[in-house]
Every structure is written in C-alpha cells, then in structure tokens.
C-alpha cells in the first residue's frame, strides 16, 4: 500500500521515475511495470527507422529531474567545447540522438531503474479503497499511467498495400517514394529518401506549420497554459486539434535540400499517392485514449469524463475522479494532452512527473 506504481516503462515512465527518485523515494518504493526494461526500447527503434540524428528538443530535452544543467552545458563540461553553450543561448542547440541515448543510459544506472522494473504488461488498473489495484500486482496509493503512443497510424486506404511501410518501421528506399504526412517524421523521410537517391513525392492534405518545437513556446509554460486551462472544453478540443497538426522546424537544413531536389525534378508535392514504388506512411501514431486498451478500460469501468478523443484531466495530469489528498491516479505522455498540450515531449513528461511527485509528497501517508 505504501508504494508508487508507474505503468509503462518508456521515456514517460522513466522521466517520472527519475523525478520520484530525486524527490527522495527509494527504488523499493516505486514499481515500474513494463515488459521491456529498456526505457528507450520503444523510442529508439523509431528514431533509428527514420534515421534521426538530432533531437527536435533543445538543451532541456532530457530526463533529469532538474532543468539545469541541460544537455548543452553538460556537453560543454564533458568536451570542453563552448559551441553547445553558445548554440543553446541562441536556441540553436539540438543534441544528437547518440548524446541523448548516452544520457538516458547514465541516468538509468544512477537512479537504480532496473531495481524497480517489474517485467510484465499491465492490462487494467482499478480504483480500490485508498488506492489502485494494478492487475494482480498489489494495491498502490499513487499510480502514474504512462503507456505511451497507442500504436502506429496507417491511413485506412493504405492498409494491406504491399508498397506501404510506416516511417517508424525499419525500411530502405525504392527509386520512387511517396511520403504521406507532413510532420517532423515526414520531413526527415523526405531528406532520407532524397539522400538515398530516390525521387520523392510528398503527399499531404495541408501545408505543415513551421516551428522549432511541436507547439508554440508559450504553451510550454504557465504563460500559455493558464489560458489553455481556463478555456471551456469545446474550445480546448478545437485548440488541441489545431495545435497538434503536423509541423517541422524552419531553416535551411530542411529547405535547401528540398529546393535543390525540386529544381532537379526529384521532389514534388501531391494530394494523393499515384503509382509510386514505395509508400512511406509518416503519419505518426493512432490518436485518442480509446486506442489504448488500458485507458479505454479505465474510462469504461470508472465512468471517467472524456472530451472527443481526450481523457479529461486536472491541470496537473491527475484524473479528477480518481485523485484526492490520499491517492492519485495520473496520466503522463501523449494521453495527458488535456493537461499539457505538449505532454508527449520530454518537457511535458517532466511537467506531469513533477506534479505527480508533489502529490506523492503531499500525501499524509505517502
């Protein structure tokens, strides 16, 4: 009864774990449920599939509980090179995937993560008196559900098409490639396929937004969040729908190769697929809590409030009907967008984790 449970051992769960450890909880007080003990087990293959070399996040896109020092000052300290520090001052620092992986592995060792991982998949969490039953593993007073994205999204019309592959699955490139989608993964795939010598057709329904991060920067802090949290449910749904449309960063790194390829007739935009040899679906993930079996069951069994495809949460990521002074059920990662629109970013994961820690600490019986 005295322990915390984190359901899901991906990056969201890992960030929460590191935060709880920072807050004074011992590894024995936290149980992390996931079949894969590697916190990068879900994320890294996807990054590898799109040949991602640098993170979209900046210096503070890390899993340490404290924002400072971020990855840029740490890199400067490690290498003696001031360039990362200068770059981060100008918001131009993007850590490499290698640096990020190293940082996660270091933190994994330091926090005792492996001591807390229970290798199993949790199918259900149920509210009980004074806590939550976690699928036969006991009752926990505080539970954080961080199950991550509920599977890859493939357009209905391309399901079963032998030419189609999802961007986040391992793949090579044919000589004529259609890339469906217009977000960060799609932009990465345009450049990958062009670099592999392919002719690329970008299939998109709308022009992507160009911004450095997934969302406008004020929405990462209370400045933008306060208005977001105040807005009525219908407005919030509309705002989330708009904000979560595809985007990728501005800059010549992206534009120059595309312009050069367009000049050579190797890159064009189209509204639909048209006989290309290969179709790369850079269409991200399935959206909505109902695609996640655990969350769907939680909602159905407890009659939780939902709005559109979102689970309605308190501003701190807790489920209002299942959180009070003595117990907490909170949600982290993409399913927490109702509380924090950028919940599926590292900063968003920390946002929920810090508030979860606050609830755990405030609980009179922990």
């Amino acid at each position, binding site marked *: 009864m005295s322990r915390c449970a984190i359901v899901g051992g991906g990056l969201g769960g890992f960030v929460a774990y590191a*935060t709880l450890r920072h807050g004074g909880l011992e590894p024995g007080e936290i149980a992390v449920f996931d079949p894969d003990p590697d916190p990068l087990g879900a994320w890294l293959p996807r990054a590898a599939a799109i040949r991602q070399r640098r993170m979209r996040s900046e210096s503070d896109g890390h899993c340490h509980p404290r924002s400072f*020092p971020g990855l840029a000052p740490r890199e400067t300290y490690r290498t003696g090179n001031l360039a990362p520090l200068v770059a981060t001052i*100008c*918001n131009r620092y993007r850590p490499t995937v290698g640096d990020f992986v190293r940082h996660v592995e270091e933190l994994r060792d330091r926090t005792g993560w492996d001591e807390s991982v229970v290798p199993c998949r949790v199918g259900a969490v149920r509210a009980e008196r004074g806590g939550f039953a976690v699928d036969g593993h006991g009752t926990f007073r505080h539970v954080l559900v961080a199950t991550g994205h509920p599977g890859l999204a493939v357009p209905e019309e391309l399901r079963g098409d032998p030419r189609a592959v999802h961007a986040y699955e391992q793949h090579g490139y044919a000589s004529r490639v259609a890339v469906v989608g217009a977000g960060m993964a799609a932009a990465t795939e345009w450049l990958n396929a062009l670099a592999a010598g392919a002719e690329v057709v970008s299939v998109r329904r709308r022009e992507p937004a160009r911004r450095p991060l997934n969302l406008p*920067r*004020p929405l*990462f802090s*209370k*400045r933008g969040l306060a208005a977001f949290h105040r807005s009525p449910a219908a407005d919030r749904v509309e705002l989330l729908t708009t904000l979560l449309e595809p985007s990728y960063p501005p800059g010549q790194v992206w534009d120059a190769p595309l312009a050069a390829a367009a000049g050579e007739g190797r890159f064009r935009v189209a509204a639909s697929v048209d006989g290309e040899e290969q179709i790369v679906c850079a269409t991200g993930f399935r959206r909505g809590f109902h695609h996640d079996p655990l969350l769907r069951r939680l909602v159905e069994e407890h009659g939780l409030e939902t709005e559109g495809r979102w689970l309605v949460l308190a501003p701190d990521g807790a489920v209002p009907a299942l959180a009070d002074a003595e117990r907490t059920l909170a949600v982290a990662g993409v399913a927490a967008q109702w509380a924090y629109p950028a919940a599926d970013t590292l900063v968003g994961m920390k946002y929920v984790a810090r508030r979860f820690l606050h609830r755990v600490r405030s609980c009179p019986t922990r």
Partner: protein
Amino acid sequence: MSYTLRGRLESRLAASVLPFLAACILALALSAWWPLELAGAMVAIGIALDVLVYHRLLQFQPAWLSVPLGVAELALTMAVVRLAGVEAPLEPALWFFACSWVVALLLGQAGLPALRLSYAEDGGELGRGGAALSLAAPVALVGVVAVALAGQPPTLRLAAGVHEGPLVIDHPLTLVGRPGTVVRGGIVVRADDVTLRDLHVVGGEDGIDVDEADGVVIDRVTVSGVTLDAIRIRRSSATVRDCTILAGSAPHVQGIDISFSAHRTMSLVDGCTVLGGQEGIVTHSAEVVVRDNRVVGTSLRAITMTEMSMGAIEDNEVRSARGVGIYCGDYSHCEIEDNHVIGTTPDRDSDDPSRGGYAIQSHFHAVATVDGNRLEDNARELGGFAGGSFGEH
C-alpha cells in the same frame, strides 16, 4: 523562456537580493547612499520594463536577448541616475550594474532552474518563495528608507527675517531658509553632512566658511556683501549648487574658493552665478568639477584651477573677465570643455604679459585639455606661460 508577469517580477526580485545586499554593504563601507540609490533605480527600472514592455512584447524570451535587454536597462538606469542627481561615480556604477546583471543571468538561466524543479514551466514563478520575496521587497524598501531617514541630519528651518550670525554649525544639520530669510555675519560649518538651503547670507569676512568637513551641500544660497570669500571651503568636500554670489567691486573679494582638499572626495560647483569679485571660482590643491556656472565681471580671473588641482571646467559661461577668463595653473591638470568665454579684456593696470586678456590660459607646467570651447570677442584666445601647455581630446 516564456515568463508570466508574476514570474518576471518574482525572478527580478530574486535576482535583486544579492545586489541589494551588496549595495547595503557598499553603502555602509563608503558611507554613501549612491549604491542603494543605484540598486533602487536598477530594480525600479527593471520592474517597470517588466510590467510595461517585456510582458507585453515578449511571449518568449530566448537567452541571447538578455544581452541587448541588459544594455538597454543599463542605459536607462544611468540616465535616470543622472537625471535624479544621484552622485554615483561612473566606473563603480557600471561595475555594480554589470555584476548585478551577471548575477541575474546566472540565477535565471542556472540557479533558479536548478533550485526549483518547475521554474521554467511555471513561467519563472517561485511559489511560496516568490510570495515571500514579493512581501519582503516592500518591507526591505521601507526598512532602507526608514534607516535612511533615521540617519538623516535633523532639519532646522529658519523663519523669514534677519538672523544675526555668525551661525556656527558643529554637528550634522540641514539648515533651510524661507523666502526672506537672511543670515547676517556669515555661517561657519565645522561638521560633516551639513546642508544649507534657500538662504541669503549677508556681510562678514567670509559668507560661508567650511573647514574639515565632508558631504557638505550648499544649495540655492545667495551670498552678498562679504569682505573676503563669499564661500570658503578648506580641507573639505562639498557640493555647491545653484548659488548666487554678488561679489561687487571690493578689492579682495572672491566668489567660491575651494582649497587644500585634494585628500577629500571630489567637490562640485554647479549652476552658480558669480557677479564681480577678484576671482569668481578658484581652487587650490583640490579636485573639483566646475560646471554650468555663469561668472561675470571678475577683476583677476573668472575661473581658476591652480596649485596641483585636478578637475573639469565645463559648460560654463565666462563673461567680461579682466586679464584671464579660465586659468589652469601651477602643475594642475584641467579638462576645459564646452565653455563659452566672451569679452575677456587686458588688465591695463598690469605689465604682466599673462594678463593680456586671455580667454583660456595654461600657466607654470599646468596641462589644460581644451575641447569644444566657444571663444568670442576676447583680446586673446589661448595662452601658455612658464611651461603651461594645452592638449586636445
């Protein structure tokens, strides 16, 4: 970072704590108010900019923007300090600002995010600590003002009418007159931190005699009818502001004489009018800035800086001096800039060639740096004698 307004203010206050403490220590160590006044101006301008400008214009503030914003805040702070008449020496003031800025930068970018987990996502807000700071700031302000007021010399107000002198002041005091207040026979100052304001001093050998005193302020005082010096300052540091000296044509009368004070902090003579007398404003072995004064009709020299004095003579109007307008003599170093010297005439009673009606003169190994002076209708313009020399910026 995207600050909320509260976050900006709380972060600003947090960043002000160390500079404020440093200012308190400096103020105590130097026995001067300028560090606190400077820190106060710095914080006030920062808060005003936070509320009126930054919060409205900057949805997101990247780290690099701290540099241009810091420069703008520095310029505004120095302008306000100057306009408010805060007597903060330039170089220490710049250092104080720069160090405070670095502290604020380190605190905002590293210290506070390290201390408070949710600092960035809370838009710079500091939770209970911020609320405590918001309460502590006005308390600290009231405390400083209270201490400042408690430490101020008492004020004695003289009624309108004639008060027989000489008045001898031997403890810190602010002596203030009203329209029609006249002190006959002079005022003698023998204590630090004495302020004389809005007085008319008539008669006596010396109108105001200051000796062995620091921090003396002589403000909006008129002196007339004396037989030696209208204002005589020895071994002291003083600020003489907006005074009027009616020296007349008595043979030995001088306007303002600041002497033997090189071991004291710099004195200032600013905005005074001296009519007549032998020498209008004269310094011997002293560090003085003579600025924005009007000296008319002197019989020996209008403004004199001599006997290893050091200082600036700037933006003064010197009119109808006999012999010499502005004089830098006897190993002194004088920066003579942007003065207007008009109608200096030769001294017909003297056969000394240096009395030949020079607008500006450097004498006996003195070094006068001249720049931007307007010289009109003088018998002669620049004259160097006995090893005195001129330089230009």
